[in-house]
């Protein structure tokens, strides 16, 4: 069964994932949240390999940059090089504010780059604007294509 929306969070820090879930609950997000902890897992999930054969293709990916195994930029590059995955919007969600990380992300086709705020209130309001924009304002690519 497909839910209203499917979000995939790729982050190696379970505390960060839990925080994002809390923030999504706080802004009354109705969809599904799935998460994986490294870049290799992310690609396995997206390509529905191994344990992820039944995974649902997400409507949006929230991608951290600093990841074990394959870092966020490698995941992003692989996604944008794959015709099956290319259309899925990717929000880079990282603590890095290095201009090299930011411009590299856009060069590789990131749909937007968001710096993880350090403070809870800002973190919640940032998640809220991501949720409102991508699952409210935006027309996402049609499903099942």
């Amino acid at each position: 069964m497909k839910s209203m929306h499917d979000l995939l969070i790729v982050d190696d820090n379970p505390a960060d994932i839990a925080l994002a879930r809390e923030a999504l609950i706080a802004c009354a997000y109705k969809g599904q949240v799935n998460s994986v902890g490294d870049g290799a897992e992310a690609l396995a999930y997206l390509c529905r390999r191994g344990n992820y054969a039944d995974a649902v293709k997400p409507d949006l990916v929230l991608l951290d940059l600093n990841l074990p195994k394959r870092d966020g930029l490698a995941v992003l590059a692989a996604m944008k090089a794959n015709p099956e995955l290319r259309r899925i919007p990717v929000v880079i969600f990282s603590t890095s504010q290095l201009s090299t990380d930011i411009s590299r992300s856009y060069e590789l086709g990131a749909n937007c780059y968001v710096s993880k705020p350090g403070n809870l209130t800002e973190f919640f309001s940032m998640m809220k604007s991501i949720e409102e924009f991508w699952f409210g304002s935006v027309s996402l690519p049609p499903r099942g294509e």
Partner: protein
Amino acid sequence: MSSPATQLVKPASAEPKTQLRALLVEDSEADAELVLRALRKNDFDVSAVIVQDEAGFARALRTHCPEIVLADYNLPDWKGMEALNVLRRQDLDIPMILVSGALGDVTAVECIKQGATDYVLKDGLARLPEVVRRALRDKYERGLRHQAEKDLAKKADELARSNADLEQFAYVASHDLQEPLRMVAAYTQLLSERYKGKLDENADKFIGYASEGAIRMQVLIHDLLAFSRVGRAEASYSTVDCNEVLEEVRQTLASAIAECAAIVAHTDLPAIWADRTQMTQVFQNLIGNALKFRGKEAPEIFVHAEKAGQQWVFSVKDNGIGIAPEFAENIFVVFQRLHARTEYPGNGIGLAICKKIVQRYGGRIWVESQAGRGSTFKFTLPLQGPQAKEEAHQ
């Protein structure tokens, strides 16, 4: 104290003789004898090896380890000046003195140009001891100087490396500390929001302390990063009109200025060769401080600059609470604060950043103040870039 017996044994007359290992390049035994006699007569205890050709010379360098080379200019099988090339090839710094029959001035000058230390005519051997002494002394001093330069370069290297390490350490430490701290800050905040009033009073208090501590540490780390960035970032130089900088600072601080009805005035300020962002930072920190540490009256802040020799002296004068002279140095140290956080907020990073920036330009910063009588912060910036060149032409 030395015993009288020792004094009796010591030969009373002679000066201590100077030990000297000499290498003579000379085909005439008689001339060699004259040379050695001239030296021995003058308190040199000479041990000499005499050679006539390159093979002999190279061998004697190894076996005799001479301190000085005395070479005839003309030899049947070799040239005295060739000895220099051998020394150079072996990277030996041994003074070589030409001891020769009639040698034209032009030739003599040419030899010295090529690296001979000096030359002495065979019919003027009385000069030789002094020439040798001077050559040895020069070499000794050259060695000392060389060693001192080497030591200094090594120290400078070590210092630069340890500075770079420290910068790197501060940056990495603060950057990597941010991540776990972000979690502590976020979750203590979440705890306090979600469980306030649901546990007991103590729990609320404890969570509050933990949360405040984490947030304060985030600010400290943020400041530490800003401080270490001053040393790391490449400054991008351009001509910076300080009047514009001040206008910008005034706009940034507009609400703080309006809040306490402050007056910020300045005379005509110069354009300087500097990094605009860094200059803005310096003025903003100084003026921000003047607003923060105000007295009972509305702040009056006055910025002025005047040229003194090869530098500009900037001053930021206020009518605030002032600083007792004994703290005048401390306030520029990172994280040094004179007041309780509850009295005046801040982390004690502003002036440390000012100092680091000013020092990067080769200037200095200090404060002239009395407690309760306002402060004047002054800093110098050496004339640099196109301006300095203009100055130099005038």
